[in-house]
């Protein structure tokens, strides 16, 4: 485990790390006190080994050069440094006032490019890789780099020159204007002081460089490096540059600006003059960039006309009566462009420029020098005047505050001036009906589709070709040819349709007329029609083609898709055993509805809402449909085809169990393990089953023959596994041939823009366009430009295919029980299985040799305990402190589930009866999630225990996981902060488990509690669980309070219980 930190010494970026100390603090040297205090090695220094292996994981390359030693000034109490996190060491709860003291650490000097790649990898992450956790300071550096990236992207920098230590360098300097200055200030505020606490080993000076300077220098240097590295010019030898090989200092400057190091040589006087000239050149910007205000233009609509009698007589100033288009009018009032100053500090503060010329007492402008304000106003207006002639003419009289325009001028302002003004850095406040790009009412061509009544089960697919008529509409107002022609004659670019301003541009009207005359009708596949309907749009012959005016069955289909309502609510399939909750009926019916059309569906319900059950219901239903058709001889050739279900290895058994429970008629084949069938043999076998379960790993490995099977359906569980479209498993998933496709995930997919494309491409290929197009049209606008319109559009397009219901949404899910108990069936790893087998063998031997009575009892109890340990984790059984990750099926499943739960911002309790396992859980989960994991066991003193409870319940810190030993934490405590309870291993007494569960499920709990009981399928855990289930009524009597009852069983019974069945192994 390593927490990575970073800082700069001079211009050098250093990476260092904290790890838990392996031994006690090194012995302090005694003897004569040296004159200068000896700087001690930091007890939690990660050191060379840990740092270089972390770097290897993060940056890939190996063979990291030697580290350097530097000092970090760390708050220290009573001679002990306070580490950054309790993951490293317990934070001393000392009342003594801390002081800063230098501590030596091993640190890697990173090259500029290495630092950039590393920081990019840190953005938005809490854990970089298992056990590699970014410290808050490192995250801050990543944020600062991100800011530098935005400045480069936005081209907010200029070439400059600066001298340092007798050298001159050409330099790309950021220009922090307006908002960027605000961002910089924010960043400075957020900097953890640890980021500027480094000094060279030799120095005894406290690092006191102000945060603002540290931040600024880093951003400057990063920006310079990013620009320079993109130019990609080779480094010139110093000698070549030194020789007077340049005709002028300007040539030398240009060359240095492009060179990797920026060094520039030449006559000092000339260089100084160049610097002065650079400043002179940049001067006009200085006025604008140093202003605390942004100059804004606000376009104001003509005042709404009052319904006067005159207007009713038709003598008002609208043309509507004359042109004969009902509900379309052309008001002739005056528009106004108002000049305003908007404060960067408080963007809601808008000061009319009218007041700024002569600020009155009490005006916020009084803080500033009148001369400077005026200079700012004048230079802004001067610049704006060359963009808009209206602005220029407003400057003919003193103290201009705006100007008025007619409708045509207003239109020109909106279409031309506004764009140019905004590009020149001015603020624009335009009417909402104009800025709402996608929802903006405008002229468009839409398909008008007619269809008869929808017939369910008619065998229609998306490939059906549908013919339609084109029509032209203004917003949702369909226009006749006559009206369109009349509109063209109006020659008014802005008209009011039903009281709403709408743009009608002459060339668009002409294009629309032409389009219409050329293509009155069209044909397209239902797939294309649906794409149009959900909002994917395109431009054809100068006309926006978007939207759909569908009536009849296609209209019905589309509104059902969009509203996720109106489709047939199905009864539970005949062969389905178990009950579905109302929302599960809806979910399954929705899946069936999309399946009917061959449309891919993403079921993204919250964890615990039963995605598995709904999917199984669909599979059963689909199969019954096919059987029905075969029986009724609708389609004699139709034979049932299998469904491929791909899931993480750790849930294969869970699926198998759930299928056996809810759809017992469906034969399930698990395609897994080394003895799995291949090629043709696999195909034959698969066709004989209803469901084939396999893992992502094998999907990728066996895609060659998996894609050759004609699947009825392809279902991806935990579909976030294919979020990266470049991965082999994502490609393999897309290559599958299936009549329907379903993706299941409990993570909020709709929020992870980057992950959507891959999942959608699997479900409904082509709907989101190409990957590059998606990046351009959605990813960058949403992630980088924060364009809410793009986000809205994406939601509209993907919405019909994603169903996500939250447990908290009681309007939809009202019947959820307050406590839900679920069994999670886990697999054993190969290692676990062979250990299990070895223990069994051992026991059998011992049992044969043993006598009845106490000896036998002892053997059995110890066997139980050892087998349970193996099921938990090999390292727990071996007690050898060996590595944790990748060796336990339960642990893998727990980690996967916590991934989803933590992403949904919920908290959990994990119970185990073994203190050693609790310790391993704490360690592993801390490394996996990068946060402190609380662990309560019998050895925790009362005071500390109370503090743990307090911290967990308070919710001030990020402490989502609480591990408890069943004995220490099973009773008495109040832990209602959690709404998930895991029983990592089982106590064979339900009462004890329930008591533990009640730590969370008790008065004060406001949410539904989910209880996850982990069971290794095919092992004693499952058998015992079955026995308990059977005897649950009389459990108290028969089972007693402990595990003693097991010892009363016969050898045969015991053998059966303890046996290892084939299904247990997951790989």
């Amino acid at each position: 485990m390593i927490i990575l930190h970073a800082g700069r010494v001079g211009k050098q970026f250093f990476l260092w790390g904290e790890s838990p100390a392996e031994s006690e603090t090194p012995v302090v040297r005694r003897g004569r006190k040296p004159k200068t205090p000896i700087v001690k090695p930091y007890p939690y220094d990660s050191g060379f080994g840990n740092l270089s292996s972390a770097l290897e994981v993060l940056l890939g390359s190996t063979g990291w050069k030697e580290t350097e030693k530097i000092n970090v000034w760390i708050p220290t109490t009573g001679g002990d440094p306070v580490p950054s996190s309790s993951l490293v060491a317990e934070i001393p709860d000392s009342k003594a006032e801390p002081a800063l003291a230098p501590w030596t650490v091993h640190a890697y000097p990173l090259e500029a490019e290495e630092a950039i790649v590393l920081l990019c990898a840190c953005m938005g992450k809490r854990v970089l890789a298992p056990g590699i956790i970014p410290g808050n300071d490192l995250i801050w550096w990543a944020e600062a780099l991100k800011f530098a990236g935005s400045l480069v992207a936005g081209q907010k920098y200029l070439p400059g020159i600066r001298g340092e230590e007798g050298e001159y360098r050409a330099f790309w300097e950021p220009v922090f204007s307006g908002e960027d200055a605000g961002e910089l200030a924010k960043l400075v505020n957020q900097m953890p002081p640890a980021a500027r606490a480094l000094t060279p080993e030799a120095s005894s000076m406290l690092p006191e460089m102000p945060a603002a300077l540290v931040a600024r220098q880093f951003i400057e240097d990063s920006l310079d490096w990013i620009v320079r590295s993109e130019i990609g010019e080779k480094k010139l030898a110093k000698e070549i540059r030194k020789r007077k090989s340049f005709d002028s200092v300007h040539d030398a400057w240009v060359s240095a600006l492009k060179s990797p190091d920026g060094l520039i040589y030449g006559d000092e006087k000339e260089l100084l003059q160049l610097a002065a000239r650079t400043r002179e050149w940049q001067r006009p910007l200085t006025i604008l960039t140093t202003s605390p205000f942004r100059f804004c233009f606000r376009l104001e609509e003509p005042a709404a006309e009052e319904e006067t009698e005159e207007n009713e007589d038709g003598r008002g100033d609208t043309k509507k009566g004359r042109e004969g288009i009902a509900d379309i009018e052309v008001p002739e009032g005056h528009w106004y462009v108002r000049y305003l100053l908007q404060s960067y500090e408080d963007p809601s503060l808008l000061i009319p420029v009218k007041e700024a010329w002569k600020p009155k007492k009490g005006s916020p402008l009084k803080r500033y020098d009148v001369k400077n304000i005026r200079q700012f106003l004048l230079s802004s207006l001067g610049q704006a005047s060359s963009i808009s002639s209206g602005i220029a003419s407003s400057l003919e009289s003193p103290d201009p505050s705006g100007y008025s325009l007619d409708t045509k001028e207003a239109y020109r302002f909106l279409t031309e001036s506004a764009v140019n003004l905004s590009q020149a850095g001015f603020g624009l406040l335009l009417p909402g009906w104009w800025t709402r790009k996608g929802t903006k009412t405008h002229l468009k061509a839409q398909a008008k589709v007619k269809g008869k009544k929808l017939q369910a089960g008619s065998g229609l697919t998306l490939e059906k070709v549908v013919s339609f008529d084109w029509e032209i509409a203004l917003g949702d107002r369909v226009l006749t040819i006559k009206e369109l022609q009349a509109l063209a004659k109006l020659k008014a670019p802005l008209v009011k349709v039903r009281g709403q301003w709408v743009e009608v541009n002459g060339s668009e009207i002409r294009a629309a007329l032409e389009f219409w005359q050329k293509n009155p009708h069209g044909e397209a596949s239902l797939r294309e029609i649906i794409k149009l309907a959900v909002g994917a749009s395109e431009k054809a012959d100068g006309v926006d083609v978007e939207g759909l005016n569908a009536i009849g069955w296609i209209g019905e289909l589309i509104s059902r898709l969009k509203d996720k309502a109106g489709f047939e609510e199905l009864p539970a399939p005949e062969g389905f055993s178990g009950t579905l909750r109302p929302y599960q009926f809806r979910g399954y019916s929705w899946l069936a509805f999309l399946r009917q059309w061959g449309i891919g569906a993403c079921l993204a319900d919250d964890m615990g809402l039963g995605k598995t059950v709904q999917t199984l219901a669909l599979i059963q239903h689909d199969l019954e449909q096919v059987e029905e058709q075969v029986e009724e001889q609708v389609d004699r050739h139709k034979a049932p085809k299998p469904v491929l279900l791909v899931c993480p290895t750790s849930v294969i058994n869970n699926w198998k169990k759930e299928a056996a429970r809810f759809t017992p008629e469906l034969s399930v084949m698990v395609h897994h393990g080394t003895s799995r069938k291949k090629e043709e043999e696999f195909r034959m076998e698969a066709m004989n089953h209803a469901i084939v379960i396999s893992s992502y790993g094998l999907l990728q490995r066996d895609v060659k023959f998996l894609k050759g099977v004609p699947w009825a359906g392809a279902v991806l569980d935990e579909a976030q596994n294919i979020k990266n479209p470049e991965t082999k498993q994502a490609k393999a998933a897309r290559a599958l041939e299936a009549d329907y496709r379903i993706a299941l995930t409990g993570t909020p997919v709709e929020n992870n823009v980057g992950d959507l494309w891959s999942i959608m491409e699997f479900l409904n290929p082509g709907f989101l366009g190409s990957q590059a197009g998606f990046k351009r049209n959605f990813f960058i606008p949403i992630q980088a430009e924060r364009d809410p319109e793009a986000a809205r559009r994406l939601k509209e397009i993907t919405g019909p295919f994603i169903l996500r219901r939250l447990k908290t949404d009681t309007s939809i899910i009202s019947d959820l029980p307050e406590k839900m108990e679920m069994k999670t069936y886990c697999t054993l790893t190969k290692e676990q299985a062979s250990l299990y087998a070895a223990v069994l063998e051992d026991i059998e031997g011992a049992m044969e040799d043993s006598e009845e009575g106490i000896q036998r009892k002892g053997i059995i109890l110890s066997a139980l305990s050892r087998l349970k340990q193996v099921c938990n984790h090999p390292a727990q059984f071996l007690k050898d402190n060996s590595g944790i990750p990748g060796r336990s099926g339960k642990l893998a499943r727990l980690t996967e589930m916590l991934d989803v739960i933590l992403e949904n911002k919920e908290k959990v309790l994990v119970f185990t009866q073994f203190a050693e396992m609790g310790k391993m859980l704490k360690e592993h989960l801390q490394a996996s999630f990068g946060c402190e994991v609380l662990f309560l066991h019998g050895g925790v003193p009362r005071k500390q225990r109370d503090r743990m409870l307090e911290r967990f319940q308070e919710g001030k810190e990020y402490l989502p996981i609480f591990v408890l030993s069943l004995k220490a934490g099973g009773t008495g405590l109040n832990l209602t902060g959690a709404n998930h309870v895991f029983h990592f291993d089982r106590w064979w007494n339900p009462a004890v488990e329930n008591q533990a569960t009640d730590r969370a499920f008790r008065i004060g709990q406001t949410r539904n509690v989910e209880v996850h009981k982990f069971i290794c399928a095919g092992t004693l855990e499952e058998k015992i669980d079955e026995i308990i289930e059977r005897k649950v009524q009389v459990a108290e009597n028969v089972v007693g309070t402990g595990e003693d009852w097991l010892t009363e069983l016969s050898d045969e019974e015991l053998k059966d219980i303890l046996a290892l069945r084939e299904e247990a192994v997951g790989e």
Partner: protein
Amino acid sequence: MAAYWDGYGNYEPTKPIEVKGGIKAKSKRGSFAQSWWAKRWIKTLESFNMGARLSRGKSYARKGQVTSIKIEAGLVRSKVQGSNPTPYSVTIKVRTLTGSEWELLAEIIALKPIFAAKLLAGEMPEDIDSAFREIGLSLFPETLDDLETDCSCPDWSNPCKHIAAVYYLLGEEFDRDPFLIFKLRGVDMDDFMSILGKGFVPETVGQVAEAGVLTGPDDKTGTALEAEISPVSPEPLPIGPEVFWGRLPESPGEEKSPSLEAHIPQAPAALPKRLGKFPFWCGEEDLLEVLEEIYKKASPAGMMIFLGERK
């Protein structure tokens, strides 16, 4: 090569000594200067009937024979490389306006904000001349009386080609910054704003900036580069461990709202374009062209880093 007869009996070699790194005119052929005000400036020169000296001056300006130009109030000093190993010194003196003349002017200018606005934005207002004429003045030196030119070359005709070369290059500088003409006539930007202030709110002129946020542009021509970095006052590290490690209370529900945005502008290199030509540019390549190419290349890289995708 053919010799050149200058009409006054002086025989001079056609070729001046070649200079590297002189100030190069942006104009490569045809007329100098693009703005009407720079054209006005050059028109005055061209009205002097200089004959062939004019075109020689032009080609001097284009070849980069002028190695330095300094503009002060009322005075331009310049070095021009001719055929003599030592560069010639050229001076152009312009009559500066008196304080009272400026004040009269300010009253007129204050009534029409367009004048000041255009000037501040780097443009000469079209009818600024009318403002000058109203008080019987002219912004541009128009007759020989307004100008006094001198050159250390042997050619006794004045203006000579060296003066013409400087004159042309000045025209290009005026293109970039029309304010230089005002500077030449004795008023720099700061003075100008103060004078304007009198027209607006007389009582506040001369007040010192309170908050210092809207400080005006500083013209630190000639100061050492190191001086730019203002001395920093140390900021001691806080000693509280919570603050020191940035361990602020944080719950998963309160993630930092992503306020930072990145946009690749549609029109590249807007910032340098807004600044226009670099003062007295001597480089081989056109600076704006060089910059535009670099900006275009760097933007996507910046976006990648913003999105955390540098690998």
